[in-house]
């Protein structure tokens, strides 16, 4: 119990003293997760939308699979990415292992299905609404997807935020491909895992609270930017 209190104090101390290590790993966490979010969205938003408007033979199968991939175990993803990037793996020569890039790659793989699924679900509604009009205006597939993404951007926010949340809190994969190397690939979550292992719960919790604060900050910022709630029919 008092550990939780100690954790809050630790978080407070870390923040007010602007502990340089903390700042470093926090920025790295942000950098990795935001990059992963951007890259994943570039695939996932169009793909999810495309799934919503396109009817083809194995559509249901594809969607079910996509939903299933939301359950990709991070550790396994990490392992596979590790094997691919490992020196003895096919992309070993790139020397990406144990770098932030490797962590971004792993996280992209983890969050893309999540973002795509939520996008698909949100876009089906909008497509049902726009279907006749867009067909009638003789639009190209590309134009349809663009229109839906643009007009549905506010609902897509949730998809993106879900992806970011999954990324920023993820540890299993980046631990393996990043290696949690001090001053190189250590991020908040891996640091938390480390301190937990040392039994230093106060510090672990402190870092955890910092991470949560970070997530809150990002979300408030994004919400402030896109005035989500102004939307809707009221």
């Amino acid at each position, binding site marked *: 119990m008092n550990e939780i209190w100690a954790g809050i104090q630790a978080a407070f101390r870390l923040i007010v003293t602007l502990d340089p290590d903390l700042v470093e790993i926090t920025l790295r966490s942000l950098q990795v997760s935001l990059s992963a979010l951007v890259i994943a969205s570039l695939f996932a938003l169009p793909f999810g939308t495309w799934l919503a408007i396109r009817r083809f033979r194995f559509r249901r199968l594809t969607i079910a699979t996509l939903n299933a991939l939301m359950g990709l175990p991070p550790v396994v993803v990490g392992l596979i990415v590790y094997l691919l990037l490992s020196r003895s793996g096919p992309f070993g020569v790139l020397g990406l292992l144990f770098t932030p890039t490797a962590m971004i790659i792993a996280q992209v793989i983890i969050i893309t299905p999540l973002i795509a699924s939520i996008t698909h679900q949100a876009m089906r509604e909008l497509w049902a*609404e*726009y*279907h*006749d*009009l867009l*067909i*009638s*205006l*003789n*639009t190209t597939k590309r*134009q349809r997807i663009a*229109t839906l993404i643009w*007009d549905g951007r506010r609902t897509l926010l949730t998809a993106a935020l879900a992806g970011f949340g999954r990324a920023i809190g993820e540890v299993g994969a980046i631990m393996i491909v990043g290696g949690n190397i001090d001053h190189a690939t250590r991020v908040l979550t891996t640091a938390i895992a480390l301190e937990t292992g040392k039994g230093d719960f106060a510090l672990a919790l402190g870092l955890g609270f910092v991470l949560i604060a970070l997530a809150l900050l990002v979300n408030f910022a994004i919400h402030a930017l896109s005035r989500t709630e102004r939307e809707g*029919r009221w």
Partner: protein
Amino acid sequence: MSAPMSVVLEQAVITRRGARILGPIDMALGATGFTIVLGPNGAGKTSLLKVLHGVERLSSGRITWSVPEHAAREAQAYVFQKPIMLRRSVQHNLAFPLQLLKVGKPEIGTRVADWSRRIGLGDALDRPAKRLSGGEQQKLALARALIRHPQVVFLDEPCANLDGRSTREIESLLLDASKAGTRIIMTTHDIGQARRLASDVVFLLNGRVREQAAARDFFAAQQTDEARAFLNGDIIE
């Protein structure tokens, strides 16, 4: 004006979850004229228009336009029974069809200004279209369809929610367009309006074409009791 567009339906049928909601229909529509499709609720008017326009697919049978599929789609416009409003402002709704065609900004600006004025929404350009009143939405949908100067226009009860004056304005606007050579295919439940506008009439009943004739002949003397009953607003058969 490019090649005239006539269309032929052969044994056209739409079935939805087992039930046949349209057809079988054999019908030909010429390249010119102002066709009014009449029929009671659920007769299949909307379905027929959608099939002609190509937003609804046939379950069986054939539809053939006198010009290649693509050209046909390019030159057509449709005003749906329930106006479909993009989640955008009035002016962006008007601009949308032109943007799709990569029309230049200034050109778009002038056309949007012109049409928004015509439908009396000149001072509502920045309002979200979804917040417009029923009639305003219907007028916006109409303008958005005509702004591309289509050769063929499908209108599904375009004046249902309009006040007397707007109705009159729209009617004259349509007559002008028709005179200018635009092919118009329209449904309405307002017999008076049908009389004022139609050059020829298609009377639908239970998904079948019950009667097809020149407007003059049709309103003068219906060939079928059903049509007669319908016009009197009586119970049909």
